[in-house]
């Protein structure tokens, strides 16, 4: 029963959501919205498990005085501070929570991703080698798209010469063409695969063939 009931819940919830799509009755639409809200409520409780895991990892590090443990204190204190301020004093524009978001989280987030510009370029420089036709295509497509996004760089490279001017005016179009045709063709092939895979996996879950998500509980079958 410990496995059968969850399998039944999965089946019923799945069938309702799939069938409801084809029955645009008011009652069905209300139930659909309500069930989606239920999913969000359960997701909120699941977030507590994630936070528990994060805090446990850092508290364990502090307790055992592991390498760099003072930074774990920073993580925990900043987490608690953000939660207390956000829940205790609100998150409206102009609040302390909003200030922390705008002046601490946003710059940290944007700079972390900006940092990747250096690492991605360095990795490309070390690994991109035109050793085969496939690798050459990849390299050429990447270079054309990059140059097409900043056509001014071609004037810097070639100067105000005929070639420079021609590349400056042509490269954005070539880049756009690559993005709109060969690139879209391959991505569309992948998307078809993803869509069919999603449907197959969803059916497997609903029918109880795929049940790895129920494997966490050690309470027996």
């Amino acid at each position, binding site marked *: 029963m410990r496995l059968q009931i969850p399998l039944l819940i*999965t089946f019923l*919830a*799945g069938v309702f*959501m*799939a069938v409801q*799509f*084809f029955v645009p009755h008011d009652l069905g639409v209300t139930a659909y919205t*309500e069930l*989606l809200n*239920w*999913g*969000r*409520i*359960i*997701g*909120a*409780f699941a*977030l*507590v498990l994630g936070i528990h895991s994060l805090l446990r990892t850092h508290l364990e590090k502090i307790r055992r005085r592991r390498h760099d443990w003072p930074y774990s204190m*920073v*993580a925990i204190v*900043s*987490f608690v501070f953000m*939660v207390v301020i956000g*829940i205790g004093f609100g998150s409206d524009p102009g609040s302390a929570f909003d200030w922390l978001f705008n*002046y601490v*989280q946003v*710059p940290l987030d944007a*700079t972390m991703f*900006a*940092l990747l*510009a*250096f690492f991605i370029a360095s990795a*490309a420089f070390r690994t991109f080698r035109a050793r085969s036709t496939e690798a050459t*295509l990849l390299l050429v497509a*990447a270079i054309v*798209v990059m140059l097409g996004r900043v056509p001014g760089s071609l004037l810097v490279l070639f100067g105000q010469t005929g070639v420079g001017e021609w590349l400056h005016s042509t490269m954005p179009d070539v880049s756009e063409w690559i*993005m709109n045709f060969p*690139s*879209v*063709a*391959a991505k*569309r*092939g*992948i998307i*078809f*695969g993803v*869509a069919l895979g*999603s*449907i197959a*996996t*969803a*059916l497997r879950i*609903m029918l109880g063939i795929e049940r790895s998500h*129920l494997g*966490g*509980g*050690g*309470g*027996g079958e």
Partner: protein
Amino acid sequence: MGVSIEIIGVWVAALMTLAIFSFLYADNPVYKLAEHLFVGISAGYGVVITWHEAVIPLLIDPLFRPENVDLAEPNYLVIIPGLLGLMMFSRFIPRYDWLSRWPIAFVMGLYSGLAIPASVQTYLLPQLHATMLPIWPGVEVDAWTALSNFLLVVGVLCTLAYFYFSREHAGAFGVASKIGIFFLMVAFGASFGNTVMARVSLLIGRVQFLYDDWWLPLVAAPISRWFGG
């Protein structure tokens, strides 16, 4: 007061930006401090947003303050997801951890059922429709567009051929599969180039922030005034 809070904010944001960029020199205590601050603040942000956008309006208000969500009387149905959510915590008690399967099963069923029509409606049909393009030059399209469309259709079919593993990639099918790889390589290269440029524009944004919002008004201008400039 508002201006000074804003100035402190710009200083904090600039110092955080520099702290992260300091990693380019080497992994150092300032970077680690900013990194862990980011982890804590981001996790806290997630909790607060979930609290204000899910727990309060979907669970607490419908039960205890129905007037806040335009309800005449409490919606007792939300007790069900509340209880299912609480069952998640049974994972903390090994003897009863099997109870956590119920909410997981519900959520998995919910989103599996949702995924079937959603995949068909948002991926399969629109992509199929978008692939049915005119490939013969005429009134509708010029020769170049027709050729490009033809290339797109061939690219989609060849990419699908590459991902079809139920048949050996030999003969004509092998050729199609090989062409599919070429298209995939172009797509990966284009995606890579696009990602690099997106990261570079983020980098430019950060440098512009440092220069325009912090360095010029809050560092260079006071120094200039100090020296009577």
